[in-house]
């Protein structure tokens, strides 16, 4: 935190006070009677009143300090508090005794007890058990009470303090010792003050000093003499300091309480606004008006880093990311250019707090007060908290808005995608319909001419057989064979396209059962063949039973075809695991194939054997692949010439 125009002047004036007090004391006791009036003023009631006031102040102070030491854990307050308590009790009794009845004795006990505990301030570092700390003051108070009452009851039990109208030597000695003890306490407080710069310690120092001086100068006085009244005044001043301190503490805590209340209310209202309001501008506006209305400031506004102004404390706060305080606008040299306007607006001090996110300052919260130096440490702490809440709120809001926008974008995108899917589906449907019409036309119209070619060739062969040469007949037969093969090709193309077009119905399919029935069908086509079918039972999958039937017809049909020239032909259907997925295979020991051509295997109309070797149009494996693909599976194969082939497939 930077404080502009922090007043570097150190205040030494308060040292004048103790020096003055010491000087007056010296002047009073030293025999400079030429410049000092010498008198004896006998007034018992005035004295009693003074002592009673002192006792009351001491009692209050003792209780206050003991309570404070309990709450704050400051041990030196404990000793001082106990001292005040003891001193106040003795002084109280002293104030109600008459001269001769333990009058001096009780006073001496008071200063001796007080002094003793003030000297014990040096024991503040000492660790004490909680119980001892609780009991000791009250034990001491009880002792003081007992001694005081005993003194009132029988003065003869205690040493005499007066001798021929003069203070006895014992009285003088005891008071001097008490004075020294108080001075020891005063040294403790003065050191504390130098160390902590806490003004409270200076007050205590002053107080202990005056108690001490009163004790020391006791010996130079006679009862009711001017010296005697003087040290009474010293003591009274001490007690008045005590009282003043107490009253100040009380008032201060009241004011502080009010201020904290007001500040907390402001903070709470602002936080509520941050939570409640969804618009950034509105949030900032509300927060600023809370600062002014509840916080009692003159003006508050937020300046953003990108607003480009950057002058004054706001600009500094944005640039440095630190809080800037102008304690006195009227005489701050750095505020010269803006002073006239500020003063006209009634501003006396100002603060700029950076609003940060991830260490980056994005704005500054500016607050003006009509009071000079309105931003003390606790206020700054509170406002910093408010600034960090505002920064967090604004950022949360921005994040939320960004998220909402992203959500909206996603929704729009989804809608677009949906629309596109609908469009594509429509296109696909119309393409399918066209394809269907095309297929229908092919199946119907392309076959008709073939029938004519074949039919009329046959008609020529039948009707004009005798009139033509053998070669001519052969040509006509070849025309017929070609047209029939073309018909077969057309049928196969249609089959292939039907496999792709047909609607899928997923169900539980018994693959083993399909293989058994296909095998039986195959066996029926060539009864004479001896083929060993090894079909693993109980294999069921999920899929379209009709399509899978077609696939296995083709796979087993191939195996059947390519083992036709093999003695001891064997066709096997089984299952295995491939990459943790079930895979199925058809293995044969037929003619096999060269793996070099394996990429052509699954292409439509690609054949690895001639028509004369093994009949076929080359559509079977292409069909198989389409069916397996439609099931989300894969199909692949391994083969070796003259050793057979294996076809593997997986299904989703």
């Amino acid at each position, binding site marked *: 935190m930077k404080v502009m125009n922090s007043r570097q002047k150190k205040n030494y004036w308060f040292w004048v006070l103790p020096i003055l007090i010491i000087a007056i004391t010296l002047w009073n006791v030293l025999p400079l009677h030429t410049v000092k009036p010498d008198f004896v003023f006998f007034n018992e009631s005035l004295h009693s009143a003074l002592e009673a006031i002192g006792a009351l102040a001491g009692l209050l102070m003792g209780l206050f300090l003991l309570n404070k030491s309990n709450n704050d854990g400051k041990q030196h307050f404990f000793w001082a508090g106990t001292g005040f308590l003891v001193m106040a009790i003795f002084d109280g009794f002293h104030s109600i005794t008459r001269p001769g009845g333990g009058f001096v004795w009780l006073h001496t006990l008071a200063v001796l007890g007080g002094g003793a505990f003030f000297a014990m301030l040096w024991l503040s570092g000492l660790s004490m058990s909680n119980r001892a700390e609780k009991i000791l003051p009250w034990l001491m108070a009880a002792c003081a009470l007992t001694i005081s009452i005993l003194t009132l009851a029988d003065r003869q039990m205690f040493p005499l303090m007066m001798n021929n109208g003069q203070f006895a030597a014992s009285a003088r000695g005891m008071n001097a010792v008490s004075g020294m003890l108080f001075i020891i306490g005063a040294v403790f407080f003065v050191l504390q003050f130098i160390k902590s710069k806490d003004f409270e310690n200076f007050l205590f120092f002053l107080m202990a000093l005056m108690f001490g001086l009163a004790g020391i100068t006791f010996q130079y006085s006679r009862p009711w003499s001017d010296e005697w009244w003087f040290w009474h005044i010293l003591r009274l001043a001490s007690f008045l300091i005590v009282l003043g301190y107490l009253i100040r503490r009380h008032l201060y805590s009241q004011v502080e309480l009010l201020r904290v209340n007001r500040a907390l209310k402001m903070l709470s209202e602002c936080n509520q606004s941050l939570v409640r309001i969804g618009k950034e501008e509105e949030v900032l506006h509300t927060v600023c008006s809370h600062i002014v209305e509840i916080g009692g400031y003159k003006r508050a506004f937020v300046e953003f880093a990108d607003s480009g102004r950057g002058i004054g404390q706001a600009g500094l706060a944005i640039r440095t990311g630190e809080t800037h305080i102008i304690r006195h606008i009227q005489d701050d040299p750095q505020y010269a250019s803006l002073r006239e306007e500020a003063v006209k607006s009634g501003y006396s001090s100002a603060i700029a707090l950076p609003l940060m996110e991830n260490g980056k300052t994005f704005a500054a919260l500016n607050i003006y007060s009509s009071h000079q130096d309105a931003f003390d440490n606790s206020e700054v702490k509170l406002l910093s908290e408010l600034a960090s809440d505002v920064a967090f709120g604004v950022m949360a809001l921005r994040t939320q808005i960004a998220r909402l926008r992203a959500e909206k974008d996603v929704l729009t995108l989804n809608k677009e995608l949906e629309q596109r899917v609908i469009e594509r589906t429509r296109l696909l449907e119309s393409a399918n319909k066209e394809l269907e019409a095309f*297929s*229908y036309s092919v*199946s*119907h*119209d392309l*076959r*008709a*001419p*073939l*029938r*004519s070619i*074949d*039919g*009329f*060739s*046959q*008609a020529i062969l*039948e009707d004009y057989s005798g009139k033509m040469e053998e070669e001519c007949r052969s040509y006509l037969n070849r025309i*017929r064979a070609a*047209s*029939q093969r*073309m*018909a077969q090709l057309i*049928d196969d193309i*249609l089959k292939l396209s039907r496999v792709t077009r047909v609607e899928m119905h997923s169900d539980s399919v018994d693959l083993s059962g399909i293989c058994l029935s296909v095998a039986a069908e195959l066996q029926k086509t060539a009864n004479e063949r001896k083929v060993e079918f090894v079909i693993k039972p109980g294999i069921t999958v999920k899929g379209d039973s009709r399509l899978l039937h077609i696939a296995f017809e083709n796979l087993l049909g191939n195996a059947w075809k390519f083992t036709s020239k093999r003695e001891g032909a064997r066709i096997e259907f089984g299952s295995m695991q491939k990459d943790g997925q079930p895979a199925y295979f058809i293995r044969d020991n037929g003619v096999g194939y060269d793996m070099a051509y394996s990429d052509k295997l699954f292409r439509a109309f690609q054949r690895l054997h001639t028509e004369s070797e093994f009949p076929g149009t080359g559509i079977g494996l292409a069909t198989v692949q389409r069916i397996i693909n439609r099931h989300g599976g894969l199909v692949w194969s391994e083969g070796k010439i003259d050793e057979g082939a294996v076809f593997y497939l997986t299904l989703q």
Partner: protein
Amino acid sequence: MAKKVILLVEDNPDDVDLTLRAFKKNNILNEIVIARDGAEAMDFLSAAGKFAGRDLDDVPQVILLDLKLPKVDGLEILRRIRSDERTKLCPVVILTSSKEEIDLLNGYKSGANSYIRKPVDFNQFSEAVRQLGLYWLVLNEMPPVGRKV
């Protein structure tokens, strides 16, 4: 005794010739009436156009019906046949190039008695016609056609 007429509804002249040839080859000598498109077939059924004056009670022994026809398609004709009291029970054999499932289904749904796909191989076609003739003209007992039911 009504004449055992065969009605052939076929638009392709080649197919007409080949069908006639197959009949002839298989010694099926019944009179064959040819309707060359859907409209002609309709005319035959209602004794209109070139079939005006025909005795409507003279119901064909069997109707061979192509599906893909100009003007009025085969299924439409089939439905017409089935809606007419006189021809309702007349055997209709669909004789077509298509083997599409949809045609098969619609054919049977509309009341076809049989569905034959014309093979490209004439020998097979001839065999099919022979069996067809044997079955529908000889083996099959006709419903009492021509009588009011």
